[in-house]
C-alpha cells in the first residue's frame, strides 16, 4: 500500500454527498415519524384541511428533499481535513465555521464503519475519538476503503513520515482469531436470555405507548380483546394459553439473543498488529476498530457455567470517556481461554495468570443475605397487593433464589493484587473478572458502615479513569494495608 499525501486540505469522496443526504433524510424521517403517521391517518379519514391536496403534499415533500440535498452538498463542500506531522485538522460548518485540531498522540481510537448505504456505494466512514469527550469528535462519512486504511495508518504513526514515502516498512499483522458460525451460534444460545426478554418487553411497551392512540383509532385493541375472550372459556384453556405464552417468550428471547449475536458479531475477526489490536465485525454495520494497549484502562472477562462448558469467553475492553453505545463494541465474544489470556497479555504485558486469590471475609455472606432478604420482603409486600392472601406462595421461588444467590455470589467473589495488576472476580450467574493496572489507578477509597465498624470490616473502592472496582468486606487492617500498598504503587511510579 503506497502512502497517500494528506498534507493538503482535502474533501472526502464525492459519494459523501449521498451518504450525508441519506443520513439526514433518515434522521428527518425518524424525528417527525409520529407527525407523518398522524398526517397519514387524518388524510385517510379525509378530515384534512382543503389546502392539503395530494399535489401540494407531493410538492412539499419534494421541496423538503431538495432542501436536505442542498444542505448535504453544502456540508460536503465545507468539510475539509488534512494532516501534518503531529496533528489532524478538520474544518467544517456551513454558516458557523468550526476548526477542530487533534494532536495525534491524544487519539484514543479510530473506527472504520460501513453502514448499509455505505456498503452499497462502497465507501466507509472513519471516526476519530479522544478521551476528552464521551461522544465521537470527528466523523468522516465517505472515504474509499484504501484511503481510510491509509489515513488510519498515518494517524497512528507518531513520528513524521519521511518524504521518500516509499521506504515504508510492512506492518507486521496477523489474523489472531476468527469466530466461526458454530461458535457464534453457541454464544447466542448461552447468552443471558432474561436480558433479551426485558429488551423485547420494553420495546413492545414503548411501541404500544407511542401508538396507543392510533391503535385505538384503528380498533385493533377491541379486535384483540374479543379474540382473547373466546379462549378464556375453561381453566385448562387458560393454563394452556399461559404455558404457550411462557414458551413463546423463552423461544422469542432465545431467537432474539441468537440473531442479535449474529448481527453484531458477524465475521468477527481479531487482528494483531505490531502495537495495536484490530477488531472487525458486523453484518449490516461493518465495524473496524483499532485499540491501542496504552490507552486501555481495564479488561473485563465474562463467562458463565454454560459458556465455560463450551469454552466461550467474552472480553470487554474499557477506555476512558467512551460513550456507552461505543463501549458495547469493544467486546470480543466466543474466545477460548488461552486466546483470552493471550490478548490480556498483549495489553497487560506482565500479567501472569496466577491462581491464588484472596476471599472476602465471612461477613460478606451476612451482608448478601441481609440485602437479599430486604429485597425479598419488598417483593412479598408487592405480591400481597397483587395476589392477595396467597402472596406467601411466591416465597417458594424467592427463598431458593436467595440461597443460590448468596452461595454463588460469595463463592465467586475474590480478589488478587500482584506487583502490577489488580484482579477482582464477581458474579452470580455470570463469572466476571475485572483486571486493571495498578499504575492507572486514579483514586482509592475505604468505606465502612457503623455495622461493619463493629465487626472490623471495610470495603475498598478503586477508581480508574473508566471504571470503579470494589473489593467488598475485608478486615479493617487488610483494607488499610491494601490502600497503603496501592497508593505506594501509584505514587512511586511517577517519580521515575
Amino acid at each position: 500500500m503506497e502512502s497517500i499525501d494528506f498534507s493538503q486540505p482535502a474533501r472526502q469522496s464525492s459519494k459523501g454527498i449521498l451518504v450525508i443526504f441519506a443520513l439526514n433524510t433518515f434522521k428527518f424521517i425518524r424525528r417527525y415519524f409520529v407527525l407523518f403517521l398522524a398526517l397519514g391517518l387524518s388524510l385517510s379519514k379525509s378530515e384534512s384541511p382543503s389546502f392539503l391536496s395530494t399535489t401540494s403534499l407531493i410538492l412539499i415533500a419534494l421541496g423538503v428533499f431538495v432542501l436536505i440535498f442542498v444542505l448535504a452538498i453544502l456540508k460536503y463542500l465545507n468539510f475539509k481535513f488534512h494532516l501534518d506531522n503531529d496533528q489532524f485538522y478538520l474544518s467544517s460548518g456551513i454558516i458557523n465555521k468550526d476548526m477542530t485540531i487533534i494532536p495525534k498522540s491524544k487519539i484514543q481510537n479510530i473506527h472504520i464503519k460501513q453502514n448499509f448505504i455505505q456498503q452499497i456505494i462502497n465507501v466507509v466512514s472513519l471516526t476519530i475519538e479522544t478521551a476528552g469527550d464521551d461522544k465521537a469528535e470527528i466523523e468522516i462519512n465517505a472515504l474509499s476503503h484504501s484511503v481510510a486504511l491509509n489515513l488510519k495508518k498515518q494517524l497512528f504513526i507518531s513520528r513524521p513520515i519521511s518524504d521518500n514515502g516509499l521506504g515504508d516498512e510492512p506492518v507486521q499483522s496477523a489474523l489472531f482469531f476468527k469466530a466461526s458460525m458454530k461458535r457464534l451460534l453457541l454464544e447466542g444460545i448461552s447468552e443471558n436470555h432474561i436480558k433479551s426478554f426485558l429488551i423485547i418487553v420494553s420495546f413492545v411497551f414503548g411501541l404500544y405507548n407511542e401508538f396507543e392512540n392510533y391503535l385505538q383509532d384503528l380498533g385493533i385493541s377491541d379486535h384483540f380483546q374479543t379474540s382473547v375472550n373466546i379462549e378464556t372459556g375453561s381453566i385448562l384453556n387458560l393454563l394452556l394459553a399461559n404455558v404457550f405464552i411462557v414458551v413463546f417468550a423463552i423461544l422469542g428471547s432465545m431467537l432474539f439473543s441468537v440473531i442479535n449475536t449474529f448481527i453484531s458479531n458477524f465475521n468477527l475477526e481479531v487482528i494483531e498488529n505490531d502495537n495495536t489490536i484490530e477488531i472487525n465485525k458486523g453484518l449490516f454495520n461493518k465495524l473496524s476498530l483499532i485499540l491501542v494497549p496504552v490507552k486501555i484502562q481495564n479488561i473485563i472477562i465474562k463467562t458463565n457455567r454454560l459458556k465455560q462448558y463450551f469454552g466461550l469467553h467474552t472480553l470487554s475492553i474499557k477506555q476512558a470517556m467512551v460513550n456507552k453505545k461505543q463501549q458495547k463494541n469493544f467486546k470480543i465474544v466466543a474466545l477460548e481461554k488461552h486466546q483470552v489470556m493471550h490478548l490480556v497479555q498483549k495489553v497487560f504485558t506482565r500479567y501472569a495468570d496466577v491462581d491464588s486469590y484472596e476471599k472476602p471475609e465471612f461477613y460478606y455472606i451476612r451482608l448478601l443475605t441481609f440485602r437479599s432478604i430486604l429485597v425479598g420482603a419488598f417483593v412479598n409486600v408487592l405480591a400481597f397487593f397483587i395476589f392477595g392472601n396467597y402472596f406467601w406462595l411466591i416465597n417458594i421461588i424467592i427463598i431458593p433464589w436467595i440461597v443460590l444467590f448468596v452461595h454463588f455470589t460469595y463463592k465467586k467473589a475474590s480478589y488478587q493484587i500482584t506487583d502490577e495488576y489488580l484482579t477482582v472476580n464477581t458474579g452470580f450467574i455470570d463469572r466476571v473478572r475485572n483486571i486493571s493496572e495498578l499504575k492507572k489507578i486514579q483514586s482509592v477509597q475505604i468505606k465502612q458502615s457503623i455495622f461493619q465498624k463493629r465487626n472490623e470490616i471495610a470495603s475498598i473502592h478503586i477508581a480508574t479513569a473508566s471504571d470503579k472496582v470494589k473489593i467488598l468486606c475485608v478486615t479493617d487492617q487488610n483494607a488499610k494495608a491494601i490502600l497503603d500498598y496501592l497508593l505506594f504503587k501509584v505514587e512511586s511510579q511517577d517519580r521515575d
Partner: protein
Amino acid sequence: MFTNQQINLDILPSIDDVALKPISKQYLMIIVINRWVFYALIVSALMVAKLKIVHEGFQLAFWYLFSACALFCILNFVVALLAFKKRKYAIREQDVIFSKGLLVNSISVIPISRIQHIEISRSWLARRFNLATLKIFTAGESGIDLRIAGLNYSEAKQINDFLSNRVNGID
C-alpha cells in the same frame, strides 16, 4: 541506575499514622442554618395549610405531621452534629485525604499526580463566614472526586496553590 529492591510492606507509610485535621468549626454554623431554613420552610408550610384547610381530618393529622417533622428535625440535627466531627482532611506529600460520614464512613485518597483540576467555590453563606469549598477532580467519569467543604478561605487558597504547583511540576 535501575534497581529493583524488594519492598518491605511493613515500612510503607500507613494511613493510620496520618493525623487528620478537622474542618473549620464555623462550618457547623452553615450546616445548622441550612437545616434550620429547611425545617422552618416545612413547618411554615404546615402552618399555612392548617389555617387554610378546614377539613376535619387534616386538623387531627396536623399534629401527627408536626410531631413527625419535629422528631426528624431533632434526629437530623443530632446526626449532623455527630457527623460533623467525622469530617477531616489531610494533605500528605503525595496525596490528599478526606474522611467523612457517620453511618457510612469513607476515607478517600487522591494521589496528587492524578489530580486533573482543582476548584474553589464559595456560596453566599460561606462568604459571610469566610469559608470555602475545595473540589478536587480526577480523570474519568467514574472517578472519586473530593469535595472538602468548610475550609478557611485562606487555607483553601494555600492548599490550592500547593496542589496546583505540585500538579504542574513546580516544587
